[in-house]
């Protein structure tokens, strides 16, 4: 009965779906690495687990990884055809993610996989020549953008700044001050990932408290970060030390989202960024910013990009990494010259808990 065979195929299709726990299954992970390499892909260090498809002999045929809320590192052997195996791998990933309380997922993959993922319930957010970013809900970005739009400020020139602020320094404050002086209103986004020395809530608080001292009032809006702006989903290379340094593949997605979704919601016309002498990833990001925001032919108005020279103290650019170095060597007096009061108070509380106000 061919029909019965068809039924069985729909359920079984000849290969077994399993899991590779990246932290525990070294052998499985090596097989996954091999399959990814054969597809011209690297194994990202942040992938926690892979759903795998194996044939009857146990040979790895296809894999799909999960890193936080991002589905990525998809690869399959050349003989695997059709989307049946991918659908089963994705189902397994959705189940595993759901068990960990994650239902809103992103997918980061090659543009060639876009149609398959759209067939599996994903919606494209941004596309470059090398990568496509999708999310598994039709409401994610649109809800976020609708929320942002409620925070619109009146004016002709509206600025935007994105800070990691790890932690907030006089350098960041100087950038905000300069940007605000050129604009009618300024939107400041603080990166939301908890991947830095200081957690997201602390970084956000120190930015808010530090900016309050500038007395700019309603002119500046500080936004908590989101999955749609400098996150592991939109800009994985910011958080990963990738050997192949294909920083461009990922920065384009993040910048595209900023230009096509975030900026229009808030009416942002100008983006401000500090010059970057130290971090190569941030430097690459800045270099691409001009292309994606101001020049790329996208279905959204261009955004003027302004690089603001770093504030210098004691003849050296102020940076968060300089602050962290000072903190590590216990030189709080040096640090005090680099950070505003709220940041300094927080750092002091870290060094001697008894000093907490």
């Amino acid at each position: 009965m061919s029909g019965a065979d068809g039924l069985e195929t729909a359920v079984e299709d000849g290969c077994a779906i399993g899991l590779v726990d990246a932290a525990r299954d070294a052998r499985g992970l090596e097989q996954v690495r091999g399959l990814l390499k054969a597809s011209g892909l690297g194994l990202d260090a942040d992938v926690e687990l892979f759903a795998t498809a194996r044939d009857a002999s146990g040979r790895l045929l296809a894999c799909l990884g999960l890193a936080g809320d991002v589905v990525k590192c998809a690869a399959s052997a050349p003989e695997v055809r059709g989307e049946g195996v991918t659908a089963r791998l994705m189902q397994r990933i959705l189940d595993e993610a759901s068990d960990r309380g994650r239902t809103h997922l992103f997918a980061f993959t090659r543009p060639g996989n876009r149609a398959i993922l759209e067939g599996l319930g994903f919606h494209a957010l941004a596309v470059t020549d090398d990568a496509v970013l999708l999310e598994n809900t039709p409401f994610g970005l649109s809800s976020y953008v609708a929320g942002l739009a409620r925070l619109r400020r009146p004016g002709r020139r509206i600025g935007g700044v994105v800070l990691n602020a790890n932690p907030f320094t006089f350098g960041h404050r100087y950038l905000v001050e300069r940007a605000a002086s050129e604009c009618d209103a300024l939107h400041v986004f603080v990166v939301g990932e908890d991947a830095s020395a200081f957690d997201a809530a602390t970084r956000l608080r120190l930015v808010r408290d530090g900016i309050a001292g500038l007395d700019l009032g309603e002119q500046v809006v500080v936004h908590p970060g989101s999955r749609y702006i400098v996150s592991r989903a939109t800009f994985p290379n910011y958080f990963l030390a990738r050997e192949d340094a294909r920083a461009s593949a990922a920065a384009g997605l993040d910048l595209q989202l900023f230009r096509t979704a975030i900026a229009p919601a808030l009416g942002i016309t100008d983006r401000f960024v500090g010059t970057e002498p130290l971090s190569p990833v941030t430097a690459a990001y800045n270099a691409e910013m001009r292309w994606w925001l101001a020049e790329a032919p996208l279905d959204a108005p261009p955004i003027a990009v302004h690089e603001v020279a770093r504030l210098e103290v004691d003849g050296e650019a102020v940076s968060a990494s300089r602050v962290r170095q000072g903190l590590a060597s216990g030189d709080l007096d040096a640090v005090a010259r680099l950070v505003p009061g709220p940041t300094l108070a927080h750092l002091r509380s870290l060094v001697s808990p008894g000093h907490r106000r």
Partner: protein
Amino acid sequence: MRIEVDAVAGTLESSDALVRVSPAEELRIEVTSTVEAQFGAEIRRTVAEQLDRLGVTEGLISVQDKGALDFVIRARVQGAVLRGAQARPDWRKL
């Protein structure tokens, strides 16, 4: 019934549907289907009817249909909504 948490029911397998619900202050329904051309309107009607029966007036409801029959779509909407509302089914009203 009020959707309190994000929830999912169903699968992406053929003849099934994956329904995802999230809390929100408005009701938004998005349906995508592999049989959109022939059955898109019917699927939307089934989803809307089922939400109405469950008394869902707020929430983000996304339905990814893979050619599911009517009864499957109803069951998957029920499953996602009940999970999202952290509620038990009232078998008389389904």
